[in-house]
């Protein structure tokens, strides 16, 4: 297990802890999933026009678009569940950082290409079994969204795993950076699987599938799976890293400056 002396990924700042929203009804659950997809889309889109090669630029933009598509469906449905008249735009653009329920993993900065791929790999290895389980859940709307999104998620996982293997089993430099990226992002995966038996799909039930995928791909990539220790969390309770605030500021500024603008 390697530890970087200069962490690119900073721990969430300790703030006054509010009482955590532990029980996840369908609204909180759907909101959290929608926020995961929305924030992931925003981060991935930062690569548009700056990816290392043209094909990768197109790939990352496409994956961002898929995540945005899932986010729109999930947030629209979350708004319906809440019943307070908030639509997808109100939820995406008019909430502050403390009201977002995304996991910390997706809000972390992109870092280098290896960090982006590590984040995408872990996210997709979680979203694929999640959406697959949703496709069979009792909620008709969530089942439809899961059935749709899992097909796209499979492509994301495939793509990210390909890069993890290529970089891990590549040159000395690419191996070193891929391992560093895996080590740096690994602590953030645990939050994804916090048990929530009341949710439409209990995230804890997805862990075995995730671990199987990760173990296989990392082995093929000649990478070492990090030991599990430090496990930062808080995203599901609205306690985020400072990175989310900057991301939201950029994402929301236009909508807030010109409410209701259309073109």
């Amino acid at each position, binding site marked *: 297990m390697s530890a970087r002396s200069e962490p690119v990924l900073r721990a969430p700042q300790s703030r006054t802890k509010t009482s955590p929203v532990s029980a996840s009804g369908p609204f909180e659950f759907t909101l959290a999933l929608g926020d995961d997809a929305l924030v992931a889309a925003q981060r991935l889109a930062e690569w548009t026009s700056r990816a290392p090669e043209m094909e990768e630029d197109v790939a990352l933009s*496409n994956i961002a*678009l898929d995540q945005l598509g899932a986010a729109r469906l999930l947030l629209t449905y979350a708004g319906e569940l809440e019943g307070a008249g908030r639509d997808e735009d109100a939820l995406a653009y008019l909430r502050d950082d403390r009201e977002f329920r995304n996991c910390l993993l997706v809000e972390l900065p992109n870092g280098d290409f290896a960090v982006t791929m590590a984040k995408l790999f872990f996210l997709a290895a979680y979203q694929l079994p999640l959406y697959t389980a949703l496709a069979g859940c009792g909620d008709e709307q969530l*089942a*439809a969204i899961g*059935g749709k999104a899992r097909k*796209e998620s499979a492509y994301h996982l495939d793509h990210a795993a390909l890069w993890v293997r290529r970089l891990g089993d590549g040159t000395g430099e690419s191996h070193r950076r891929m391992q560093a990226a895996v080590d740096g992002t690994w602590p953030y995966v645990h939050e994804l699987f916090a048990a929530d038996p009341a949710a439409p799909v209990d995230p804890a039930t997805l862990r075995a599938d995730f671990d199987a995928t990760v173990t296989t791909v990392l082995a093929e990539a000649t990478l070492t799976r990090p030991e599990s220790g430090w496990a930062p969390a808080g995203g599901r309770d609205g306690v985020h890293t400072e990175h989310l605030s900057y991301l939201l500021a950029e994402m929301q500024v236009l909508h807030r400056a010109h409410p209701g603008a259309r073109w």
Partner: protein
Amino acid sequence: MSTARAAVAAVVDPEIRVITIDELGILRAVDEDPATGRVTVTITPTYTGCPAMDVIRADIRRALAAAGHPDAEVRTVHAPAWSTDWISERGRAKLAEAGIAPPPPAASGGVVPLTLAVRCPRCGSPETEQISRFGSTACKALWRCRDCAEPFDHLKAL
């Protein structure tokens, strides 16, 4: 076929303009209320983030209005999820003609199907390779022919 159904079925996909939404399999139903004349169209997106959906909805309404059905509603459903298996034979032929390799059958078991040989839509050679699994639109991958060296789009199985 009713005039409403015919009008909607003829709407072309805004991103792949050689194929209609009916041939692409995203048109799920056209229902006309005989009493009020109101037409309800049901469509489903290829990909969740497909940016063409708004244009498709507008094109459907425009086509219906032109065919004498101004009272129309377009509904979007997500289940069952669209599959490339829903592209008609005619649609596949049109794609190939336009230089877009049609998708192989989507596997029923796995989520992402195994890759079968993709034939070059220009020269027919099976000696092709994938350059990128993501292409110019959400539903396409970028391929290249090893024989004639032409890059081409391939509608990937979903």
